[in-house]
């Protein structure tokens, strides 16, 4: 049970960190540019 909680906490923290990376203004700008450049 303890190991499972550690696994899930780690996984959720990793997901939150990566999601935060997406929301950085420079990332939003780059991705938005890349996305619109495709069209």
């Amino acid at each position, binding site marked *: 049970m303890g190991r499972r909680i550690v696994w899930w906490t780690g996984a959720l923290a*990793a*997901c939150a960190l*990566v*999601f935060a*990376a*997406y*929301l950085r203004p420079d*990332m*939003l700008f*780059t*991705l*938005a*540019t*890349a*996305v*619109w*450049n*495709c*069209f």
Partner: protein
Amino acid sequence: MSSKPAARLSMTQVLVCGAAIVTVSMGIRHGFGLWLTPITMDRGWTRETFAFALAIQNLFWGLAGPLAGGLADRFGAVKVLIGGAVFYAGGLVLMALATSGLAFTGSAGMLLGIAQAGTTYAVIYGVIGRQVDPAKRSWAMGVTAAAGSFGQFLMVPVENWLIGSWGWQNALFVCACLALAMVPFAFGLKEPKATEASTAYPQSIGAALREAFAYPSFQLLTAGYFVCGFQLVFIGVHMPSYLKDSGLSPDVATTALALIGLFNIFGTYVAGVVGQHWPKRYLLSSIYLLRALAIVAFVTLPLTPWSVYCFASAMGLLWLSTVPPTNAVVAQIFGVRHMSMLSGFVFLSHQLGSFAGAWLGGWLYDRTGGYTVVWWIAVALGVFAALINLPVRETPIVRAAPAPA
């Protein structure tokens, strides 16, 4: 005479190595769009050159899938995975060095497409099918699919950072090194000789193919997977354009793509867990029906940033959640002897659907001046897929007993 149970790899080893390989393999390819601007500007190519190479990559991924799966079933997944990793690294290096459209298509298109066929789900799922107890198979497939989804989610910001810090060419070289990091994990999937596959029902490749393609449930699963590819690629490729046409800011599309990536991780894991306890045909039917309902709500309700975020989160949950149950049903019906090859054929249908979704979205946009028709085609296909998955028979196929030697 007593028969000893077949030796198996530990489940932890299979999951760690399989998840690591799929994370890298699915992750690297997911950020290729970030190279569009720097490569086309540096080389003086049109965007069509870049887009054509990526379209070829998707097609080769699908076409090479059955071959890679067949080789993995016959000679062992480890050899195919190592070959795939070497192709992946070579394709990325040649992609960085290509100075003509033809060379770029050969490297970024053909080589990387073949590499993905050798390092993604069909090959890994064959090992899981043979090495993991059937009672935990769907869950294990869910864990691996979630790892692949995490790789997709993770690698976009990582690759963006690499391109920004080291330049686009060096970023590709770094990714090539990362692709080679799949090799040690491939050795972790080296299967013991006396596994279930070697004691399974003896059947030639031709007989396995004839049996599968004549079996209605296989045809239905394959048709359903076509719809999956159609919906995902239509949304992934054309939704940003749809949002732009509707006057929403580019940040909304970017956040929506991030939400799809985030919720996809949970969706694939949950699908694996649910598939362990619930008939997979009902799970697949529910996924396709929920996708259709989500699209109906999205196109009929007023379009706002929050409606986009809700749609992206819902679609993220349903994004690759078809992968674990579809492959688990293939293993359940036909056994694991030719599982990678049969999964490869089902995935080929997915890729043809992907091609149709990308192409038809653009073709109908040009002819009708909007995406409304294609959204409703996606809804109709979702309902169709929900219905055709209901009669799928999940029980093992009944075969005549093999003749005594």
